[in-house]
C-alpha cells in the first residue's frame, strides 16, 4: 500500500524516507507522524528533520548504524492510525489586482476567465502547508484548483516583489522576500511572512491550512502602513 516508506542512506549522517503515494493530506499525516516518532525514539541524536512532498530527510548528529534505523522502522505498526492534521486556518489578506499582481490580466485571458473568476477560484480553496523551502519562509502549499494550473514562465522575472501571491504549475505560493522567480503574479499580501529575529521566524506550521482573503487596493495600502500579525481561526 506504500504506507510504509522506503529508507535510503544518503551519507554517513543523512537518511531519507520516501513514500510511493500521491501528494495528499494522508501522506502528510504519515510524514508528520513519523517525524514525531523519530524525535521520540532518537532523542539528542537528530540534528534536523525535513520534509518534501513525498520524503522525510533525517540528519543525525553522529553516524548511526543503518541496521538500527531499519529495525526500528520495521517494528512500527502500519495499522496504527496517524495523528490527525491540525485544524488551524491562517487567513492571509490578498489584494488581487493588476497593480499588485502584474500577471493577473494575462493569466485570466489565457485561461478564458474573467479576473474575478480567477480571484474566486484562488480564494475559495483551503491550502495545506506541507513544508518550507526555496526561500526562507516560502510555504509549499497543496490545493490549487486544477483550472488554475499554469506552466512556469520560460524566462523567470529578475525580481518578484516580497508578498507576491503567485501560481507556478500545480502550485501556488507567497514570495516572503523579493527574489527572482518564474511564477505568475496574481496579487500581493501586506503581511510580513518571515522574521529572522524571532525564535520561530514563521507563523504557520506544517499541516496547518492557509486561506486567501481578498482585500481592496485601499485596504492593502492601509495595511502596509499599519503592519499587523496574521490571524487564524
Amino acid at each position, binding site marked *: 500500500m506504500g504506507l510504509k516508506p522506503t529508507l*535510503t*542512506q*544518503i*551519507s*554517513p549522517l*543523512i537518511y*531519507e524516507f*520516501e513514500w510511493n503515494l500521491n*501528494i495528499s493530506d494522508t501522506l502528510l499525516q504519515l510524514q508528520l507522524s513519523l517525524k514525531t516518532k523519530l524525535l521520540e525514539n532518537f532523542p539528542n541524536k537528530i*540534528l*534536523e*528533520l*525535513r*520534509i*518534501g*512532498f*513525498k*520524503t522525510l*530527510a533525517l*540528519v543525525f548528529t553522529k553516524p548511526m548504524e*543503518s541496521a538500527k534505523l531499519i529495525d526500528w522502522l520495521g517494528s512500527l505498526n502500519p495499522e496504527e492510525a496517524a495523528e490527525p492534521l491540525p485544524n488551524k486556518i491562517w487567513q492571509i489578506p490578498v489584494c488581487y489586482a493588476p497593480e499588485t499582481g502584474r500577471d493577473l490580466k494575462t493569466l485570466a485571458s489565457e485561461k478564458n476567465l474573467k479576473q474575478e473568476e480567477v480571484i474566486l477560484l484562488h480564494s475559495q480553496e483551503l491550502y495545506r502547508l506541507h*513544508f*518550507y*523551502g*526555496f*526561500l*526562507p*519562509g*516560502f510555504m*509549499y502549499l497543496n490545493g490549487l484548483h486544477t483550472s488554475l494550473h499554469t506552466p512556469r514562465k520560460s524566462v523567470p522575472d529578475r525580481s518578484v516583489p516580497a508578498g507576491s501571491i503567485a501560481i507556478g504549475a500545480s502550485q501556488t505560493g507567497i514570495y*516572503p*522576500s523579493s527574489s527572482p522567480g518564474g511564477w505568475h503574479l496574481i496579487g500581493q499580501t501586506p503581511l510580513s511572512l*518571515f522574521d*529572522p*529575529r524571532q525564535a*520561530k*521566524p*514563521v507563523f504557520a506550521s*506544517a499541516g496547518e491550512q492557509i486561506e486567501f482573503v481578498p482585500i481592496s487596493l485601499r485596504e492593502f495600502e492601509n495595511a502596509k502602513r499599519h503592519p499587523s500579525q496574521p490571524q487564524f481561526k
Partner: protein
Amino acid sequence: MIRDIGYLKIMKTGPGTSVQDQGRVGFTNFGVPVSGGLDTRSLTWANHLLKNEVTDAVLEICQPGLTIQFDSPTLICLAGARTAIKLNGKLISSFGLLEINSNDELKIGLFYEGSVLYLGIKNGFQSEMIMNSRSWYAGITATDFAKKRDLIPYFTNQEIPTFTSSKVKWKLDWSSIQIIDAYAGPEFKLLDKKSQEEIESMQFTISDLKNRMAIQVVELLQNGIPEMATAPVFPGTVQLTSGGKLIMLTKDCQVTGGYPRILQLTDQALSVLAQKNAKDKIRFHLKELT
C-alpha cells in the same frame, strides 16, 4: 581579559567577500539555508591556529582586489587560497598568524592557487548573530556581501598580541587533487547504466557558473529521469537538470529542490571543490556506505 571593540574597515573589495562561520544549524525546516564557509577545512584551520572556538566567524574572500584596514591591534590568521598579500605595502607570506597593529593595511592581490581565502581573527568577528550564526545571507543578516566602507567589529586587547608558536606550514596540496568523493544520491539508481558509468569515467570541467549557492560543470550527462516532487537537498547534493546539467550545491543552496539528486559529496570533497577554479578538471569517485 579586556574586550574593547575594534573595527576592520573595507577600503576596497571585489565581489564575494563575506563573514562566515560553521553555518546555521536547525533552521532549514523554515527554508533557511545552512550557509557557512565554503571550505570548512581552511576556515577551521585558521580558527585552530588562533586558538579560537571552532564556531568563531572569519572573513571569506573569493576575489582579488581586497584592501582592509584595522583600527586596533589584534592577531589574524590566513588560510586557504595562496594569494599575493601586502601588509602596509610590503609583500608577506600568505599563510599563518600575523600580528596587526593600529591602522595596519592589508591588501589581497592575485590568487596563485585555490579560489577561497580565509582571514581569521583572534576571538572571531563580532558581527550580528542571527539564528545561532554570524554567516551573512541576504534576508537573514543585514548584509550579504561586503562593500566599500563597511565596518566589521572584532575584539581587541589594545596591545599587539605576541605568539610564540613556530610558523606552521599550510599546504594547499590536498585541494589540488582531481578526485571528488561522493555517495550515490537517492535518484542515482534511476539513471540508465551508461550515465551511471559516465559519472565515474568522465572528466568534468568546472564552469564559471560558480557562487555560494552552486557550482556547475561544463559537460552534460544524459538524463532520462522524470521531474520529481520537491524534496530536501543539502550542501554537497549534486542535481541533474532535465537538460543534463550537473549542479553541485554549495553552502548557500536552497533547502529543497525538484531536480533528481544523483550524488551527495562528502564534506571533505566540498572543501576541495570550494578551492577549484573555472576550467579546473574533476572526476567523481563513488564511495560505498559501510
